[in-house]
């Protein structure tokens, strides 16, 4: 306790030297917590968005369905079994039929996935109700904002849709864009055309068939259904987790550089401090402190930089990060390239775990960095120190 008290006094007594280190270290603190908070916010936002718009409370996949293999779609459909039909009728699930097709905006062919969905469904955050709009012979379709940008289509535009029916026969029809949905989820947008499942079933002669069934988020029971495989959200979100992890690793490099700079400053301070205070070290020993206690005194002095940095960082970091958490972080225009379902603004999330973990890591690293030069004191003889020698 005495050592801690002395260390605290020495640290504060060092004045400008201490505060410069504290400022540098506090930048590292705030930057790490800020960036981690952004990543956490990105993760949560993306997860929430894809659950709302795509995954729901989990999905039953036709056993032949492979989202990474479009060729599997030709076989990945079947009439809905009784177990799934009853869930759909109870409003706890909605079926999707996915068929390969093409559209011809401005006369150019674009391969797309035709996705049939019930216009009245409320399980997915997709404006499917617009598919009910009467369109005078044309097929009402919805596309996402990215798709609209890429094809130049807008609400009211006509476009030819082509597909193959169950027998492999090509067919085509004019479709009208009844809605361009603004979505943050690229995987329900790019290269996808949404239309009524009933119409798609008629067009492809796949009556009462579906490729997958999306459960409501409130669904608790997931019975085993023959020919269908249940995929929970943990499974469905694994790609997002991998993406977030890869971005976390990328940003960790920045943290390492920030911390490295701060630690160099502290290491340098410690080395200089021990060099400049040799006589003081000798006097401490003459007064009865053992070498190890003096070594710990200097180590704690160094480590306390991180405590001061945490407090100082909190003084400006809490208002700053709090403001960003409320106002959001406006993303650059090319944010779609991130591969995430994130909106125009990112809202960081700062959990207690993140703050405690970051503080603990910085404290441990600062202690180690402070200890390394202080080890030399353990070899120091009192009479050498009193003469100002580091023997």
């Amino acid at each position, binding site marked *: 306790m005495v050592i801690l008290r002395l260390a605290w006094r020495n640290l504060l*007594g060092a004045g400008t030297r201490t505060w410069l280190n504290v400022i540098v270290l506090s930048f590292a603190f705030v930057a790490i917590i800020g960036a981690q908070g952004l990543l956490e916010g990105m993760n949560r936002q993306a997860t929430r968005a894809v659950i709302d718009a795509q995954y729901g409370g989990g999905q039953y996949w036709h056993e032949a369905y492979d989202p990474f293999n479009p060729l599997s779609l030709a076989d990945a459909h079947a009439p809905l079994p009784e177990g799934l039909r009853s869930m759909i009728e109870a409003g706890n699930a909605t079926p999707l039929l996915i068929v390969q097709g093409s559209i011809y905006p401005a006369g150019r062919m674009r391969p797309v996935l035709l996705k049939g969905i019930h216009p009245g469904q409320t399980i997915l955050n997709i404006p499917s109700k617009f598919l009910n709009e009467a369109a005078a012979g044309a097929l009402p379709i919805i596309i996402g904002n990215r798709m609209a940008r890429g094809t130049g289509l807008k609400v009211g535009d006509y476009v030819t849709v082509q597909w193959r029916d169950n027998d492999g026969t090509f067919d085509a029809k004019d479709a009208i864009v009844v809605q361009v949905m603004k979505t943050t989820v690229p995987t329900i947008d790019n290269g996808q055309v949404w239309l009524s499942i009933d119409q798609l079933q008629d067009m492809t002669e796949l009556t009462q068939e579906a490729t997958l069934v999306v459960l409501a988020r409130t669904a608790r029971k997931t019975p085993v259904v023959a020919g269908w495989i249940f995929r929970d959200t943990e499974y469905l979100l694994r790609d997002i987790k991998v993406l977030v992890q890869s971005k976390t690793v990328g940003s960790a490099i920045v943290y390492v550089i920030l911390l490295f700079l701060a630690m160099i400053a502290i290491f340098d301070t410690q080395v200089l401090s021990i060099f400049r205070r040799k006589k003081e070290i000798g006097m401490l*020993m*003459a007064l009865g402190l053992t070498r190890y206690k003096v070594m710990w005194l200097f180590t704690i002095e160094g480590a306390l930089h991180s405590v001061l940095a945490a407090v100082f960082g909190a003084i400006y970091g809490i208002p700053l990060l709090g403001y960003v958490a409320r106002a959001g972080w406006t993303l650059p225009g090319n944010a779609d390239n991130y591969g995430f379902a994130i909106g125009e603004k990112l809202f960081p999330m700062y959990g207690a775990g993140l703050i405690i973990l970051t503080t603990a890591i910085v404290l441990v690293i600062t202690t180690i960095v402070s200890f390394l030069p202080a080890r030399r004191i353990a070899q120091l003889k009192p009479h050498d120190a009193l003469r100002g020698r580091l023997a």
Partner: protein
Amino acid sequence: MRNFEEKENLIETKNLVKTYPMGEGVLHALDDINITFKSGEFAGFVGPSGSGKTTLLNIIGSLDVPTRGSAVVMGEKVETLSHVRAAHLRNQHVGFIFQTFNLFPVYTVFENVEFPLLLLGISVSERREMVTDALHWVGLADRANSNPSQLSGGQSQRVAIARAMVKRPALLLADEPTANLDAENSHNILRTMERLNRELGTTFIFATHDQKVIRYLRRIITLVDGKVASDEARNG
């Protein structure tokens, strides 16, 4: 704090030798030193620079160890002390005063004097009382809240004396305590030390070649080339 028999010699050295490697040979800093001190002495090692005064003082203060021979300080053999026991001995029984004062710059005068008591685990109220007493002894009670940088050399050395004396050690070792002081301050400090020696019974041992100090000593041990050339007592 004193836990050894008062009848015993406070310090006893036998055939004490201290050598330092120097090139391919060795330098004999101390050569066959045999001396004893009893409690309450006001003595000093005198001699020219390099005669071994400071080395001997350091060994007595358990800041250094002899190469050969023995130094028993308050019943403890310095040559066999672990650094922890040596630190304990210094903490409990020995006070030091150095030429350069060695005050802690970030502490106030009060805190500097209080420091040894903190290490001894003495309670706050007791500490306050002891520090106030010590500052009164050296006439600096009114500078308790000053920083060392605000003090003159004489005042700084008086603070160093207060810090060394505050725990009322059995032994106070002073290495050239007046070297950085003018004549008036030197006499003031020496008079203070003499008074403390008389009033508290503390043994004072100096290492000095300053005639002003030598005039006050009641026992003068002259060292020449690491050997005791003379050991004479004077009437105080």
